[in-house]
């Protein structure tokens, strides 16, 4: 057969496959009705195992592994189809509908906002980009920012989630899993660090540098250039500036934002000490209530997948099938489990797009745990 004939052959087989697939889906639908009537779960591990063994035997040695992959996708599709038939729209999809309906059209201008650190922290700069006149309350830890929002002391919380040089702020991802909060907006902030010290200090005298671990990691090249400098971590870059002022020392410097110089009466020893000029930090604004403002084009969720081969692949295939762009995939270990992970994902898609709702519906029924973290737009 020549290539044309081969393609005709493939088309013919595909037509048969589609016909057979539809027939199979019809049967799957009836099974769903049976399961619904008898109150049975969608997933039946015993049945799936038998099915895989049977098709593998039928396939023969050469194509056995391909057949297993193909059927894992087919059973997966069947399962989410049954899930949709039995459960209707997913809770997450309902939550999104309600949030869109109930959220005011305009993003609030005034709010009580929790930030970590002290005045001059990058969170403050991020917060002021989001809200016109925020009343900011500063807390000493990320945990307390979450707790403050949880307890209703603050309406919103601002948290750094990732940096273009130093990567993700893992603690935030772990906390997002502990609290059931919603992301309502994100801010991308160009972070330019300055080295600050007391009035009498000179760069050559600096023996110790204090800052947040993330900031230190963003300035490694600069720090390497200084000789014999001790590094001390503290909870926040603004807190570091405050510590330098309170110490009164001339051999201690802080890596902080520029506004901290004026706020804490420090002098700038060196500007733009970060390793790369394009150093960006992304902050998220969290709320206890799910709020979706017009223009939301990013959606985040966290999920726990079955701990077996191909789980992540099957989930990814759904993104691909629906043409949804995945912009972030972060895995974090699950506390108390043996190297099992949770996956955080950010996707780019308008919240009003039906494919996104479909994806969310599908995901909810094909993973062990699914949590919708919110849909939002980013302020640059």
């Amino acid at each position, binding site marked *: 057969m020549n290539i044309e004939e081969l393609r005709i052959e493939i088309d013919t087989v595909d037509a048969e496959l589609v016909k057979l697939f539809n027939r199979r889906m019809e049967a799957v639908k009836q099974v769903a009705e049976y399961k619904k009537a008898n109150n049975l779960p969608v997933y039946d591990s015993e049945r799936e195992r038998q099915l895989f063994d049977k098709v593998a035997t039928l396939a023969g040695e050469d194509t056995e592994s391909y057949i297993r992959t193909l059927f894992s996708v087919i059973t997966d599709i069947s399962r989410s189809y049954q899930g949709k038939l039995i459960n209707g729209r997913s809770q997450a999809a309902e939550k999104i509908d309600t949030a869109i309906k109930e959220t005011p059209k305009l993003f609030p201008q005034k709010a*009580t906002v929790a930030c970590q650190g002290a005045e001059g922290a990058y969170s403050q700069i991020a917060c002021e980009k989001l809200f016109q006149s925020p009343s900011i*309350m500063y*807390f*000493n*830890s990320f*945990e*307390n920012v979450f*707790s403050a929002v949880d*307890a209703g002391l*603050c309406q919103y919380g601002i948290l750094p989630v990732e940096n273009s040089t130093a990567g993700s702020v893992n603690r935030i991802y772990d906390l997002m899993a502990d609290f059931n909060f919603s992301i309502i907006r994100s801010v991308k902030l160009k972070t330019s660090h300055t080295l600050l010290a007391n009035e009498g200090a000179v760069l050559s005298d600096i023996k110790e540098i204090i800052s947040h671990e993330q900031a230190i990691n963003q300035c490694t090249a600069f720090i390497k250039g200084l000789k014999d400098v001790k590094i001390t971590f503290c909870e926040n870059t603004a807190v570091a500036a405050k510590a330098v002022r309170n110490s009164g020392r001339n051999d201690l410097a802080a890596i902080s934002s520029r506004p901290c110089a004026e706020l804490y009466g420090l002098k700038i020893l060196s500007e733009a000490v970060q390793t790369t000029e394009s150093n960006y930090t992304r902050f998220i604004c969290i709320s206890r209530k799910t709020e979706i403002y017009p223009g939301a084009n990013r959606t985040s969720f966290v999920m726990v997948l079955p701990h077996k081969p191909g789980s992540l692949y099957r989930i990814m295939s759904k993104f691909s099938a629906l043409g949804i762009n995945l912009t972030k995939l972060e895995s974090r270990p699950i506390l108390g489990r043996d190297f099992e992970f949770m996956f955080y994902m950010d996707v780019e898609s308008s919240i009003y797009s039906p494919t996104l709702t479909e994806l969310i519906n599908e995901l909810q029924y094909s993973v062990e745990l699914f949590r919708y973290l919110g849909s939002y737009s980013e302020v640059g």
Partner: protein
Amino acid sequence: MIVVLKNNSNPEKVDNLVKWLESRNIRVHIFKGVFETVFGLIGDTSGIDIQLLEGLDVVKSVKRISEPFKNANRQFHPDDSVLNVSGVEVGGDFCVIAGPCSVESQEQIIDIAKKVKAAGATFLRGGAFKPRTSPYDFQGLQDVGISLLLEAKKQTGLPIVTEIMNANHIPMFEQVDIIQVGARNMQNFELLKELGRTNKTILLKRGLANTIKEFLMSAEYIMAGGNENIILCERGIRTFEQQTRNTLDISAVPVLKELSHLPVVVDPSHACGVARYVKPMSLAAAAAGAHGVMIEVHNDPTHALCDGAQSLTPEQFLDVKQAVDKVLSALRN
């Protein structure tokens, strides 16, 4: 729960915190001292996350108060409370409350008022309603007694102290400067609650068989209603000793001052029941740090209608007052 704020905290942030606490049904008692601002939280604070409050940048420290009395607790109000009663301070300068056990007649009360004032008393006391052990004893001149005290106040300018026995009588005490709650009514909680709704200064006497904690809980009853003008009065407790009517618990003075910010005065007359012990006990009270004493003075103790045995003559009172002044001046130096 006590929340101590950092100096010069942003008022807007502090206000946010207060509003949030109030939204959780917690009353916030704000004490602004010279060096620090203290929030006393009253209500069910079990749901408040201490770590969250401690993590707030405006907060210096947070602690739970184990004692059941909150408003009266010194931790809520680190400085001594100084009350202004009709222009006279209580809790700051030493005050001397003097007068007869009962108001007997216009001549009697006005005569004593003039004499105690001349001797240096700062308040005039006198019973109009008398809680007597026997129903056959003199029960006091009641409303007439109050009018006579007011007349004495008019003539001498001394603010007056008189005892209340029934919440229904509160309207009669409209012009009284300090309403006394006697030892026997210290745990009359309905009366305390009613007095809590007024803004009158209350002189609360310790019950004859009550602990200091119970005493402070009674003050708490009044304060819980919003009235913070309270003077605590130690007047002797019942022990096995029979040589004196009660045993004056001088140690209650430093203990009360440590636990509470409220002014503490001592009544040596009722404690001893014997006139000749009043002077040494008054000196002891002053030396122990009391904010004042309350002494019974009668122009004719042998013919007094009530408690003559413990009453001093105006001359004896002058002697006590001068001796007390010496103790106070010795303490100051």
